[in-house]
């Protein structure tokens, strides 16, 4: 009995640092942040050591009635378009690099380098690509798709900045998902692939009829990860466009960040309420994801 008691004490001593840190910096902010969404709490109140004041659903009315938030949320939802593109491309690239041909290790490694690149470095480098004088316009000119007079800076264009930012997300993501898919592909028995070849299936048919169905669990996981990440997109926007031009790249988390830390007075209450709305949408999307893939499985 005494041994058990000592073992418990020992266990909790070892666990203490992790538990304290998780409590203070993970669980407390979650609960307190949810509470703040229902209160009035400004930078001024915080500075004067005044407690948050309960206001019920007022912040949610403010947030949902704010045209800027609606634009922001719409942009974040529109950003989900990166998910199918990213997942299909990553899976296709994984299939492409799965076969061990000479030099393939080099390609795999090179495709992963954008993943280990800081978002701020990505911003520095891609701004040059998207510049009015940059590589993208040069390439388009070389292909006779545009003229020097018609050139514009992609990140300054209200119409194109959104897609330019999305391309950077795509660039930083495809190597990451490629690795996850590669692990999944290596678990598929080779006989299946060989049987399909013997049956005369083309590479296209094999991809859609053999690879994709067998990879469903991995696809679900990756889609889920990338959906949540897309909805929460913030860093790329902050470093590339700061929400502009004309709010065309202003996203929902950008709104949360701006309300809490920018402007005349910080409004933690409204920011938290907006964060809760985003969290709710993320939850809904995750549930949809599960249903979608689950239904397909039964079909």
């Amino acid at each position: 009995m005494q041994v058990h008691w000592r073992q418990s004490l020992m266990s909790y001593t070892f666990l203490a640092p992790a538990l304290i840190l998780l409590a203070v910096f993970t669980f407390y902010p979650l609960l307190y942040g949810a509470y703040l969404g229902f209160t009035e709490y400004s930078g001024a109140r915080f500075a004067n050591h005044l407690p948050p004041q309960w206001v019920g659903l007022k912040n949610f009315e403010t947030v949902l009635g704010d045209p800027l938030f609606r634009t922001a949320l719409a942009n974040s939802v529109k950003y989900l378009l990166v998910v199918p593109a990213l997942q299909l491309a990553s899976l296709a690239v994984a299939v492409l690099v799965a076969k061990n041909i000479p030099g393939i290790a080099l390609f795999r490694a090179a495709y992963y380098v954008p993943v280990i690149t800081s978002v701020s470095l990505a911003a520095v480098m891609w701004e040059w690509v998207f510049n009015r004088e940059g590589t993208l316009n040069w390439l388009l000119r070389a292909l006779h798709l545009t003229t020097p007079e018609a050139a514009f800076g992609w990140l300054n264009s209200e119409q194109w900045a959104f897609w330019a930012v999305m391309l950077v997300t795509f660039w930083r993501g495809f190597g990451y998902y490629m690795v996850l898919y590669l692990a999944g592909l290596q678990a598929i028995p080779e006989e299946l692939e060989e049987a399909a070849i013997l049956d005369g299936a083309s590479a296209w048919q094999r991809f859609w009829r053999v690879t994709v169905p067998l990879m469903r669990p991995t696809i679900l996981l990756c889609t889920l990860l990338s959906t949540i990440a897309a909805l929460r997109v913030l860093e790329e926007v902050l470093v590339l466009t700061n929400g502009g031009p004309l709010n065309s790249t202003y996203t929902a988390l950008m709104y949360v960040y701006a309300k809490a830390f920018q402007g005349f007075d910080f409004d933690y209450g409204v920011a938290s309420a907006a964060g809760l709305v985003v969290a709710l949408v993320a939850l809904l999307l995750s549930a949809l994801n599960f249903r979608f893939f689950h239904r397909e499985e039964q079909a």
Partner: protein
Amino acid sequence: MSARTAAAPARVARPVSWRRPVNTALRYALLGVILIFAVFPFVWTLAIALTDKTAGSSIYAFPQSLLPSRVTLHNFVDVYRTFSLGKYLWNSVVITGLTVLGTLLVSALAAYPLARFRFPGRGVIFGLIVLTLVLPGETTFIVNTLTLKNLGLLGTHAGVVLPTIAGAFGIFLMRQAFLAIPAALLEAARLDGASELTILTRIMLPLTRPSLAALGIFTTVTTWNAYFWPMLVLSGAPDKAPLAVAVLKLKGQFNYDPFNIAAGSIIMMLPVLLVFLAAQRLFLRGMEGAVK
């Protein structure tokens, strides 16, 4: 080719024989296009960083700007001096070093009892740690900033580090590693009168060195590259900012110098790239590689 097909008339695959080299060529062409997409920004940045700017060339003069005619290392020296890059480099080193040490320590300590002991509340704690993986974190950064302010840690390196070191990834990675160690080894040590702390430091940690290294490497890369959180915590203390935050300030400087920015970017990228090249297999196998 015709000679070879004639020599083997009975081969079933004969009609395909011309297709194979074409297929292989197509495969490499496709691999090459993706390669350009993936690494072009780095190649160009490196070219700009090495360009002798006194020659008066533009970074946008394609394709010459990709192959600088006069190569120099002067930009690296210049950005180091004019931008006091050393200061930010040091900040990055301190923040990354503390984060890695903290993560390894906290994760290993927490993982050991979770892997090896039975005690009341174990299931609950386990569940709570799993929960952190799925809980929405949209408002976490707001409250954590206020907490740091109350603790007097806002604008300090400790403020950047502390909230990030306890996480499910590290704890589960280490727990998995501890579970793989045979119980007989621990029993033997206990019979010899070793304390739990001795067992942890003398047996468990040395035997799980690969997992510790994996966790350390992942943490190094993530922390070195992190932008948003250090930016937020150190927004009132720009002198303490790491490179990932400071490099964007280079961009906004009044004497905008793309050659220096490129050199600074290369300096920032280099350590991460070296770590990656040294531990490639770890990254390219994903989590699986880290656990095994």
